[in-house]
């Protein structure tokens, strides 16, 4: 009689990559519905288009590398990358912008490193940053103004706008995001005047506040289901708030805290992008540092930099620092003294 030797863990949770990814996709629903309500069919078309391309690209690479298709495709990671990109891109982004972003994200940022679990940078944000740098005009002027009737056009019209065919093809939409408007107009006027713009609505920033609250709700759901830990988003939001209160208390000079938190991609970034378990640090202490770093970078780039929103860059920059943070925040193994790091560490 032979004994089967099985090492720990003996008790396993039900969580698999597949179910985690499905939950993440599900949790984007409230944010997606808000985006859909305020910005129209463009978001929907973007998501479908990005998911389609992401899965196709993933399949192509897997075929090239002769890997089992069903195993890798059924973890839904490519689908989630596509969804996140579709949510992040402007609703009227032309089809080739989203195509370049998605293909670059899946092929270069993810599959060149060996696929799911190996990529050092968040694929969706790499794709986003690439098109933001390469096509700044297409990326910043294709936000429909939610107060503007363009958002209420029907599905087919949107399809024609995005893919640029038919008689309805148009050259450009000019609507900047509230973050962009505030940043550029506050230099010459005061808060009360800037707020007159319909983009801000009566509350904080028309449409965007509900989008962010939607993503916040979805994020809280993920935290409650223990799919993401609270460390990264909390550290991110706290550091962004502290910096904004300390340096940007004067709403007549710079963007105030309310707009920082409830406009742009803050909540999407905090709960869905920064919490990526692959590209962030693994220890709780590391996650706190990671999140705080993203918050600081978001504030700095939004306030002093060229780009109106900074979530993609901040996340990428901290992804870059994540292995280093991991290296210095490894928890002490029980029963051992703290390991030495840096000079003399390996002696």
């Amino acid at each position, binding site marked *: 009689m032979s004994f089967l030797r099985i090492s720990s863990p003996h008790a396993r949770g039900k969580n698999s990559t597949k179910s985690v990814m499905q939950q993440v996709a599900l949790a984007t629903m409230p944010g997606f519905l808000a985006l859909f309500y305020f910005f129209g069919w463009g978001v929907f078309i973007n998501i479908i288009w990005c998911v389609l391309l992401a899965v196709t690209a993933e399949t192509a690479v897997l075929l090239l590398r002769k890997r089992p298709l069903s195993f890798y495709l059924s973890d839904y990671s490519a689908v989630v990358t596509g969804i996140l990109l579709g949510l992040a891109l402007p609703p009227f982004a032309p089809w080739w912008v989203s195509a370049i972003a998605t293909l670059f994200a899946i092929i270069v940022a993810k599959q*060149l490193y060996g696929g799911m679990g*190996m990529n*050092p940078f968040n694929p969706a944000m790499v794709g986003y940053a690439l098109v933001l740098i390469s096509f700044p005009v297409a990326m910043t002027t294709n936000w429909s103004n939610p107060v503007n009737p363009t958002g209420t056009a029907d599905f087919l019209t949107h399809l024609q706008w995005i893919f640029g065919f038919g008689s309805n093809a148009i050259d450009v939409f000019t609507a900047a995001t509230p973050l962009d408007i505030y940043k550029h107009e506050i230099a010459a006027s005061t808060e009360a005047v800037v707020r007159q713009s319909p983009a801000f609505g009566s509350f904080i920033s028309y449409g965007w506040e509900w989008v962010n609250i939607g993503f916040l709700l979805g994020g809280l759901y993920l935290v409650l289901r223990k799919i993401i830990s609270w460390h990264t988003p909390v550290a991110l939001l706290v550091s962004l708030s502290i910096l904004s209160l300390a340096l940007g208390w004067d709403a007549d000079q710079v963007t105030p805290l309310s707009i920082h938190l409830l406009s742009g991609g803050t909540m999407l970034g905090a709960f869905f992008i920064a919490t990526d378990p692959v590209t962030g640090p693994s220890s709780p202490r590391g996650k706190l540092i990671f999140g705080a770093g993203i918050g600081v970078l978001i504030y700095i780039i939004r306030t002093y930099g060229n780009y109106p929103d900074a979530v993609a860059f901040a996340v990428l920059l901290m*992804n870059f620092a994540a292995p280093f943070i991991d290296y210095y925040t490894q928890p002490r193994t029980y029963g051992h003294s703290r390991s030495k790091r840096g000079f003399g560490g390996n002696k």
Partner: protein
Amino acid sequence: MTDYLLILVSTILVNNFVLVQFLGLCPFMGVSNKLETAMGMSLATTFVLTLSSLCSYLSFEYLLKPLGIEFLQTITFILVIAVVVQFTEMVVRKTSPMLYRVLGIFLPLITTNCAVLGVALLNIKKQNGFVESIMYGFGAAVGFSLVLVLFSAMRERIAVADVPIHFKGSAIGMVTAGLMSLAFLGFSGLVDI
């Protein structure tokens, strides 16, 4: 004071020598396989870069300019850098054998780092003053160290990833450097220097 701070921000983040200006790529790719060696390299580079930008400024201002032979600047700077590196190596060896052992081969290697010569030449081109030159050199070195150390920690992780065979080693290193460069573009516009 603010000017000096802006020079630091500019050289470390906005115009990072490695990721934005693409100088000093050889040590960046060559010494980034292990975190410990990367730290030794960055320490040595910081020291030499600061000192050499000071020396090259002095030699340009008080030697080449009065004699009217500014066209010799490149060759002079190469000589100055080599001297500084050799001098540093001798001093470190005599005063701190421990540090000498840590830095080891990296000290002489710095002579071939194009960022060192680049800083010296850019200082002249930008007509930086005495303190500005030192700050510029120091900032360049800190920026170099920052990305080198972070990059080496990342490469240790990539080394165990399931990278396609054609991309193993330097190839994926270059791709990573490109993606990092993409991320650093986010800093553009912070400072106008």
